[in-house]
């Protein structure tokens, strides 16, 4: 089975969809698109880019259309999770082997993509998480956010016994199994720790790789920067029920 996969990687290129959710990112999307094109191609991978405009109030959509960037424009604002899931559903319908999600605000540099591709080819995991804490390079986030990240790290370790250094990282790569699962289940806001827990509970192969992140490049930060405590409570509660549901069903 695994040998088949390896063979496939050698003979035929894997199809990768780069899903980039953006909400009010008119000043970031074009430079991001250009930096992605500079970082490609990568041997063994056919990479398509797909921006998801989550019903922005600014000119994001116009920028996407004017520059002929491949995108899906949502008619209603769905939140980051709903936007990413749109891309994942698209990938599932068009039989992509991998989905990479990266934020539209320039936090996730395109130069780091090659490490994802390499890890995918070499190890073939179900979920690859780009961690800014594995080698402590680049922007290390604010103190408040680091506290929140530490909390989720401890919670996931308590529930699954697995140590993940950056459970809230939105820079990740999903394999086929995770893509199919994420089509069914993907929370609307702050989805990263919940999806990670879901994958770990299901026994999916999760790998972390060191990446360098930047401070966001411009535009107005999404709602995720505010209401930290509210989201921590909401996500913890939802993770608790997810764990309970899994325990009751298995």
């Amino acid at each position, binding site marked *: 089975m695994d040998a088949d996969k390896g063979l496939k990687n050698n003979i035929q290129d894997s199809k990768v969809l780069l899903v980039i959710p953006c909400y009010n990112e008119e000043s970031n999307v074009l430079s991001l698109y250009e930096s992605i094109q500079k970082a490609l191609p990568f041997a063994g991978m056919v990479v398509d880019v797909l921006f998801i405009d989550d019903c922005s109030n600014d000119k994001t959509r116009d920028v996407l259309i004017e520059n002929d960037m491949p995108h899906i*424009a949502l008619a209603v604002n769905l939140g980051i999770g709903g936007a990413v899931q749109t891309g994942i559903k698209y990938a599932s319908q068009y039989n992509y082997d991998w989905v990479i999600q990266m934020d539209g605000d320039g936090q996730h540099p395109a130069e780091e993509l090659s490490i994802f591709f390499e890890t995918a080819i070499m190890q073939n995991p179900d979920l690859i998480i780009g961690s800014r804490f594995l080698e402590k390079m680049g922007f290390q986030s604010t103190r408040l956010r680091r506290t929140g990240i530490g909390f989720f790290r401890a919670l996931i370790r308590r529930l699954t016994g697995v140590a993940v250094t950056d459970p809230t990282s939105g820079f990740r790569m999903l394999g086929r199994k995770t893509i199919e699962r994420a089509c069914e289940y993907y929370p609307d806001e702050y989805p990263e720790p919940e999806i990670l827990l879901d994958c770990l509970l299901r026994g999916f192969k999760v790998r972390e790789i060191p990446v360098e992140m930047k401070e966001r490049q411009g535009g107005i930060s999404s709602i995720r920067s505010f209401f930290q405590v509210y989201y921590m409570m909401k996500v913890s509660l939802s993770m608790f029920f997810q764990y309970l549901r899994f325990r009751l069903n298995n």
Partner: protein
Amino acid sequence: MEFTLELLSVSITLVLLFIVFRLILKGRLRAEYSIIWILCSAVLMIFSLWREGLDIIAGFLGIYYPPALLFLGAILATVVFLLHLSVVSSKFQNQIKDLTQEMGILKKKLEELGKGENEK
């Protein structure tokens, strides 16, 4: 005095029933949501006409002030109905999300088809 009170509660119940029926007839209230309102009206009607009933049940439950039983019932019914509405709105939110995503993907497919046509 007793009779006036009975008349008042019966007419309030009738007005409530009338409004519910009218809303269903005009298609502004789905039949499944109207069940709870019809049941509520029925309970109100029973106790409007059979006033000793309230005293008997309250006495049986050890409630000293019988109208308090009515309040208890009303509050419980409200809480249950609000919970039901939260469930309904969660369902709607999911459906809207699925529809929006499906629509976005279809729009993209349509654009791609359009591009293909132009090139031919």
